[in-house]
């Protein structure tokens, strides 16, 4: 329902022509530094990474401290361990050259950084599959503006045997789109589902690559709350930290995903 919030913000700002922005001085308290874990594993061989860093001050620039020399491993349901190694030239980034996520499995991540240990688990489900990508033309955006843009729709068939959670990533002409799209099958279990990537601007001639990820509820909750955290304005929820699935005092997430990708080119 981020559509609606976004729509409100657009209308509110669009209507109120006298609105003005300025930078003000707001003194903020300093929170203790926390370790941030971003652990992403896909079902393609070697398609995985773990990024370890620390939180920083709000007003400092964003070159966050990286955590090098950590011991990072992922273990599957059968107990097979895969040790990740730090990527040369990229401090704080860890990867495994051949590891691949399998369907209907369950993985455990373990990170030992200095004296601290963090763990997390992530089950996997079926391999999702896009049916098709389509597009429609629109002028302006929800009544604001007059530019002609395109709205890209994806559709896929949900697995009726389980409760499923999805994330959709978009790249326009190779550049990653910042918008977060997540959904669950509470309203369409076992049926065909279709939705536009409503917040992504697409123009004539653009190449749009979409990725569909199947994930567990903890990952869904993480991304849903991450999206709420980033929303702004009067129709956004009270800000809070995304609900992490990592235990041991770190923030961030660990996800093992089964995925599918599809590309559409908007004709000139």
């Amino acid at each position, binding site marked *: *329902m981020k559509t*609606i919030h976004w*729509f*409100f913000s657009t*209308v509110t700002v669009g*209507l109120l022509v*006298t*609105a*003005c*922005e*300025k*930078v*003000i*001085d*707001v003194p*903020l*308290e300093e*929170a203790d530094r*926390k370790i*941030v874990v*971003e652990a992403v594993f896909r079902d393609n061989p070697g398609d995985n990474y773990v990024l370890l*860093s*620390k*939180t*920083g001050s*709000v*007003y*400092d620039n*964003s070159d*966050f401290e990286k955590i090098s020399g950590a011991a990072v491993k992922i273990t599957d349901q059968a107990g097979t361990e895969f040790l990740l190694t730090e990527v040369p030239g990229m401090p704080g980034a860890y990867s495994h050259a051949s590891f691949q996520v399998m369907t209907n499995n369950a993985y455990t991540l373990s990170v030992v950084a200095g004296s601290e240990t963090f763990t997390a688990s992530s089950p996997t489900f079926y391999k999702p599959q896009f049916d098709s990508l389509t597009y429609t033309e*629109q*002028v*302006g955006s*929800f*009544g604001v503006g007059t530019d002609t843009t395109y709205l890209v729709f994806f*559709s896929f068939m949900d697995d009726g045997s389980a409760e499923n959670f999805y994330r959709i990533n978009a790249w326009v002409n190779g550049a990653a789109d*910042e918008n977060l799209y997540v959904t669950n099958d*509470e*309203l*369409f*279990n076992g*049926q065909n589902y*279709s939705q*536009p990537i409503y917040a992504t601007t697409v123009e004539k001639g653009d190449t749009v690559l979409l990725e569909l990820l199947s994930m567990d509820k903890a990952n869904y*909750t993480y991304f849903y709350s*991450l999206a709420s*955290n980033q929303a*702004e*304005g*009067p*129709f*956004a*929820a*009270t*800000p*809070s930290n*995304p*609900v992490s699935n990592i235990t041991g005092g770190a*923030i961030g*997430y660990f996800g093992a995903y089964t995925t599918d990708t599809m590309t559409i080119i908007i004709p000139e």
Partner: protein
Amino acid sequence: MRCLLPNSLLLLLLLTAGFSFGQEKFTISGTLKDGSTGEDIIGARITVLELPGTGAITNTFGFYSLTLPKGTYTLQYKSLSFTPMEVKIELNQDITKNLELKPDAKTFDVVEITTERADENVTSGEMSVERISVKDIETIPVIFGEKDIFKTMQLLPGVKSAGEGNSGFYVRGGGSDQNLVLLDGAPVYNASHLLGFFSVFNSDALKDVKLYKGGAPAEFGGRLSSVMDIKMKEGNAKQFSFSGGVGLIASRLTIEGPIVKNKGSFIVSGRRTYADVFLKLSNKEQLNKSTLYFYDLNLKANYRFGEKDRIFLSGYFGRDNFGFSDQFGFDWGNATGTLRWNHIYSDKLFGNTSVIFSNYNYKIKFGGGNQTFQIGSEIQDINVKEDFDWYINSNNTLKFGANFIHHTFKPGEIETGSGINFELNDIQKRYSAETSVYLQNEQKIKKRWVLNYGLRFDNFIQLGPGDFYTYNDAGDVIDTTTYGDWERVKTYNGLSPRLGTTFILNEVSSIKASYGRTYQFVHLISNTTASSPTDIWLPSSSNIKPEIADQFAIGYFRNFFNNALEGSVELYYKDMQNTIDYRDGAEVTLNPTVEGELLYGRGRAYGAEFLLRKKNGKLTGWVAYTLAKTERLFDEINSNTWYPARQDRRHDISIVGIYTLNDRLTFSATWVYYTGNAVTFPSGKYEIDGQIVNYYTERNGYRMPNYHRLDLGITLNNKAYKTVTDPETGVETQVAKRWESSWNLSVYNAYARENAYSISFKENAETGQTEAVQLALFKIIPSITYNFKF
């Protein structure tokens, strides 16, 4: 239920104590009406000159009843803006006296408003009650020049605005969903237009507005914080009249007149905005197909069948409509209807039977042709109500009645067009039944005491059909139970005592105290900062317990300079149980298991309210100051320590001045100042998914900047009289014009203060540095409105 018995016994004892026997007594009763329009006069005071301290007040239908020992009396009938009338009566039998009062004659240089009784403030049995006069609403400057009772109400102590230009309000630390807004007895669930900038009430159609901030009589229940009781006009029963206005945002038109002269009347009042007219002028096809407007329509009719019976039919219909081309549509609105039968059973017993309907819904439509996807939500009430006023004797007025409400909740209805090859399931409907009975007596003891005591009993049942979930501590479903039609899912009972007392110290001062308990069985589910049209309501259930509030208040009332200046101080403490908050990142829209996203906690609010008000003379207005604190406590939030509620504002000041220069020119000014809302700001940041994300440590640990604003207004009445020269005698006389008109000019935020609407922490695209960016919505907003009447 065990505590019901002792309470009712006490009540009976108190009641019987009020009776006196012996002397032969008779009753004078009747109705009081406006001599020019035939409208009922509410709250008029009838005093007996021979028996100081004895009197009666007309109820909301203009009915009064007064029982006195046999004798000869002079009765004085007085009301705001009417010429008082004295009537001599020989009371040796029961008498019916229906009277009409003349409105105050307009003179050229004196503007005098006769108030109720001059010392009403001190002597009445009510406290924590605010009343707004139509004159105040008309002259006080507001944003875009759209007169708004809600915004005028926000200038009173203890009532806080929900934000810049917003019509939502908070009363004594309660949430905006804890206000019961009644239009002719019908609850209005979402009382705002255009994302909160305007209230849904067109003030042209309104007659009387009363806000109970606490200690509401037992006839009201169902919301924790306050009751805003709004009565619509009945319409002119003497002659047809038209009035209206053309403003910056909207135009209004009201038609009223008799159905049968002096027997029945009607009023139709409409309002519509016209921002979309400009869109129509666009040559872009997509744009001129767009819609952007709201409208509302108030209708009321009444008819008198004989002396004792009267039927009222009133309705409200309002809607906001946003649409863009045929790709997107969004509309929402309220509809209410009230059918009411007044019957005078005897000169002492007045009865009211009402059937009330209320509906709020919204619809959002995406896509066009057969490729559509629509989301809707709705709450609907059907309410049957029976109320009696029993004027037992001149010292006791007993109100009692019963009420039954059937609620239907549709949290999410999803429809897809025929061209869409998939379907989404609806969120299950919910049903509930709310039954209440109440009893309330106002008793005068000697001349110095007024006692108000009442008891309300509420029974709430959540009904099937549907699947009902049980959740674990993490909010995950652990069990599902299916119930059939009309099957009881969960029952709650609540007993609410209401007590109030006034002790008159001397002619100019009094002390008042009150206690009241309130229950709320329907809950707004919304974790957004501002109220939004997509807010949904849910009933109490096995998971959501009824919200309960206990409020204590004590006040000192003192008038100065022969009642020219009214002063009051009220202190209050409110304790709230089972208040609702949300898990971090809660998903509250289109979520069948939304109850798992809720958290339950406690709330407390306390404060002091100071009011100094001048009601008469050329300069009128008030100064209001509120010192308050509002906090919440939840196991899961802020490590289980008390944290400030968002609407926690330490200081809140409103100054309102209206200066009437002569009968043509009125100047007005308001100045407001309040402490910034409590807000959550980050105390760190980090990078994830290639994005910079804020890190939070404390709920509502920061403050928005303090808010202040000055508004100015001028009302210019065009000449109301014309000079007519008698052709024979040559004598000039002043004759009132049939066409009355006025101009209203106002300036919102006259000194262009940039008040913070929101503060966000963003990275500067050039420097890469994070900055606190403040958004201010309105700088100076001038507006002009033309009003007319004929």
